[in-house]
């Protein structure tokens, strides 16, 4: 190595190669955390619209009772693939994209610790989702057994696209695990001198914990899909009582993955909101340490509550009680977080730019989702709520107005740092208000139809649910259209706009706000000193 550095020309050439390559190659070969972060975010946005288009099909069919637009078989494929796309294609890649962009800049690292793996973990994703989406065009259609793919509906009784479904989930899992390894290795090894764990920004902390959850549960999902594959094609009987298996075993395995998975989709959101609220309240985050402990407790508890998705499967009463109590306990650390955010606002000096608006909406609406979650924890009541639209309302409140709203907040908050331009505030406020109103028209009445007894995953329904379903569909179309404003705003912001300062926001604190906007291709090549 020393021989190379002695030649000044070679050195200059070396420097030259550090800029981004041109054209498609830049994106295909990139190992730069900012480029990969951008790829993840754009991919997630694309998937958000594809999954959203499927939701539009669902809502169009449910606009009126009777079958109008699609047949039940295709309807089931739409609900299934909508769920898979939104979970694995939109929310998770969006968070990974944010982690790629922000974790190195927040801890003063030059890049992610494993840049080539980083490239790979992104570039297998388009293949995974192409396989999944193209399977919809197979004879017999795509997966139609719900994103939870309960056996034996997904084994003996599924169409031949199941093999492709299994393969694509494997690829998604590999991508997530590699992303998680990268985050953990980066955080453990590349923190700037002086940045102890308890000085890390909360976004870094929440992602650190999320990454451990991912590594713990993605292999469980891989196991579940593999068993589905061998049950269907290779004559095993993991989930078939006729061969000594048990269909409920599938649900235990799936939800052992599935419950931590839902926290994977919300913990980074907690980190984002914990960054934004102090900035716009111009006041330090209340209870930093308790936030870290609360996040860790939520992560640990997430492994002890999986069977609350399965109260009607016929568990012994002792198990039902255990899972009810554990599930109720989760309300405690989650409550601590909400109280801390409110205490952060208390006696601050708040302004209400778009990121703050989304963060505030997150706090209110995610809490509503938390309330319905608490109601669902009460086992006897869950017997009535289970598999109705009440559950659909619950998880859309935590995933759309929770996870997605936090991603929107993050996009607005860091866009000026990424592009170097301020976004259009008026357009952003329009996007926020349209989204806020329509999302509630969309999801709030679902509580009512669910309580009134409408099961989920049905393409047609009894007449007493008709009025609410029409209203829900209108909300759905409005919410879908509102998101086009966001695309317009992002394109505008990339193309130009008012020049952003380094700090961007008056109250912003943290290493990412000390470097220029847009963030240079290579930042923190020499680590900053943290006092």
């Amino acid at each position, binding site marked *: 190595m020393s021989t190379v550095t002695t030649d000044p020309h070679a050195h200059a050439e070396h420097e030259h190669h550090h800029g981004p390559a041109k054209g498609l190659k830049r994106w295909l070969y990139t190992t730069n955390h900012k480029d990969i972060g951008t790829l993840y975010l754009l991919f997630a946005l694309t998937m958000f619209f594809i999954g959203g288009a499927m939701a539009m099909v669902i809502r169009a069919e449910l606009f009126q009772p009777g079958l109008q637009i699609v047949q039940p078989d295709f309807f089931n494929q739409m609900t299934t693939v909508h769920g898979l796309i939104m979970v694995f294609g939109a929310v998770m890649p969006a968070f990974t994209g944010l982690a790629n962009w922000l974790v190195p800049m927040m801890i003063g690292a030059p890049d992610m610790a494993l840049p080539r793996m980083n490239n790979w973990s992104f570039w297998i994703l388009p293949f995974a989702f192409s396989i999944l989406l193209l399977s919809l065009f197979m004879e017999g259609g795509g997966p139609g057994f719900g994103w939870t793919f309960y056996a034996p509906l997904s084994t003996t009784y599924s169409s031949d696209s199941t093999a492709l479904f299994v393969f694509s989930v494997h690829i998604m899992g590999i991508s997530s695990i590699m992303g998680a390894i990268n985050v953990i290795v980066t955080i453990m090894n590349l923190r700037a001198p002086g940045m102890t764990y308890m000085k890390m920004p909360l976004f870094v902390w929440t992602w650190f914990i999320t990454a451990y959850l991912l590594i713990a549960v993605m292999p469980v999902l891989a196991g579940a899909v593999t068993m589905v594959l061998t049950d269907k094609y290779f004559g095993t009987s993991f989930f078939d009582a006729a061969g000594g298996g048990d*269909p409920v075993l599938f649900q235990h395995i799936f939800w052992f993955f599935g419950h931590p998975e839902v926290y994977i989709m919300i913990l980074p959101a907690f980190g984002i909101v914990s960054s934004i609220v102090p900035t716009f309240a111009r006041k330090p985050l209340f209870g930093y340490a308790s936030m870290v402990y609360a996040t860790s407790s939520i992560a640990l508890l997430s492994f002890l509550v999986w069977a609350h998705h399965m109260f009607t499967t016929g568990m012994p009463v002792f198990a039902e009680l255990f899972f009810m109590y554990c599930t109720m306990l989760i309300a405690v650390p989650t*409550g601590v977080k909400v109280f801390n955010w409110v205490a952060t606002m208390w006696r601050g000096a708040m302004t209400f730019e778009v990121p703050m608006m989304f963060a505030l909406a997150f706090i209110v609406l995610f809490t509503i989702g938390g309330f319905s979650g608490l109601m669902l924890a009460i086992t006897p009541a869950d017997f009535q709520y289970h598999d109705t639209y009440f559950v659909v309302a619950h998880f859309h409140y935590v995933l759309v107005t929770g996870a997605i709203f936090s991603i929107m907040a993050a996009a607005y908050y860091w866009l000026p740092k990424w592009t170097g331009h301020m976004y259009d505030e008026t357009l952003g406020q329009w996007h926020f208000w349209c989204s806020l109103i329509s999302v509630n028209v969309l999801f709030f009445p679902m509580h009512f139809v669910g309580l009134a007894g409408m099961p989920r995953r049905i393409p047609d329904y009894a007449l007493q649910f008709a009025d609410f379903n029409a209203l829900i569909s209108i909300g759905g179309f409005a919410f879908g259209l509102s998101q086009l404003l966001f695309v317009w705003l992002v394109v505008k912001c990339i193309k130009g706009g008012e020049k952003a300062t380094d700090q961007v926001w008056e109250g912003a604190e943290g290493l990412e706000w000390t470097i220029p906007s847009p963030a240079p291709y290579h930042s923190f090549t020499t680590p900053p000193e943290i006092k």
Partner: protein
Amino acid sequence: MAKTSYLCCSLLTFLLAFSTQSAEMPLNMTQGVTEISQQVYHLHMKIFYICCAIGVAVFGVMFWSIIHHRKSKGVTPAQFHESTKVELLWTAMPVVILILMAIPATQTLIAMEDTSEADVTILITGSQWKWHYKYMDHKVEYYSLLATPRKQIDNKLKKGENYLLEVDRPLVIPTGKKVRFLVTSDDVIHSWWVPAFAVKKDANPGFINEAWTKVDQPGVYRGQCAELCGKDHGFMPIVVIAKDQADFEQWVAQEAATQAAAKAEEQKLLSMNMSKEELMALGEKTYMGYCAACHQPTGMGIPGVFPALKGSKMALEDLPAHIDIVLNGKTGTAMQAFGKQLSLSEIAAVITYERNAWENNTGDLVQAADIAKAQKP
């Protein structure tokens, strides 16, 4: 401020919604007609009110802060950022509330799961996409299918009052008795749910679950399958009629007699031949009820999922294989064994229909006796 008024509006609609319940547009969980369902309803309302109270408190503080602690009012932000006392308090308080909630929930749950000392036991078997009821103490069993005409679903006829919530043969139970349900499935997982009883139990293939109810009011109660079970998951409703003890006894005796008579009739039919017209008429009726959901009314099936019968090799040539698959089903596929679901004459008729409808025109006539011969001893 716009946001506050928005919240007030939504809160108002929410409360209004709960207070203006009407028969046309139910907005809340049903109180149901059993002691258990009442308890469940009260648990639901209790936890709902607790959530509302917490919500009002937390959002109240938050919006107070949003209104008063804003930069445009020229305030200087405080810099406090922790208080062990406050944090302990708001960790401990939810724990207390949760314990208070857990106690009644535990009591109700234990009562719900006590299926002992039942007066009547009924085996409920789900299959794609119908329910089968078998009275364990009487010689009565039958299938219960969606009764809503296809034309209503396809918007060619006006939808009836109980659209998608009506069946050909409802389950009948006695009032004032503890009725135990044994729930299982023949194929995928279904879930038997009647909201008015607060009973929802998964039907798992190969395993038997238990649930129970005790209905005090005679009446008609409707429910639906609650677990995604494939294409026609939305089309397998449940209707339960609760009759008082005397009426129930009369009904069950009559039903047992009718079913015994039908079996005797079946034996007699073995020696008789039905005409082609009779076979085709009965065959079409049976086909539409039991086969058309998968193989479609056109006999075209759904490519890649359910095979076509029109022009199929089996329906045109191989009669023994055709009889065998209808009688015994095909393992590892959605094709069920209809031998135990249909009468001999129905099976004979449906096979005749499949071999002569949709230009299959084989001219084959299959009689009940042929089916009886093919049946495994």
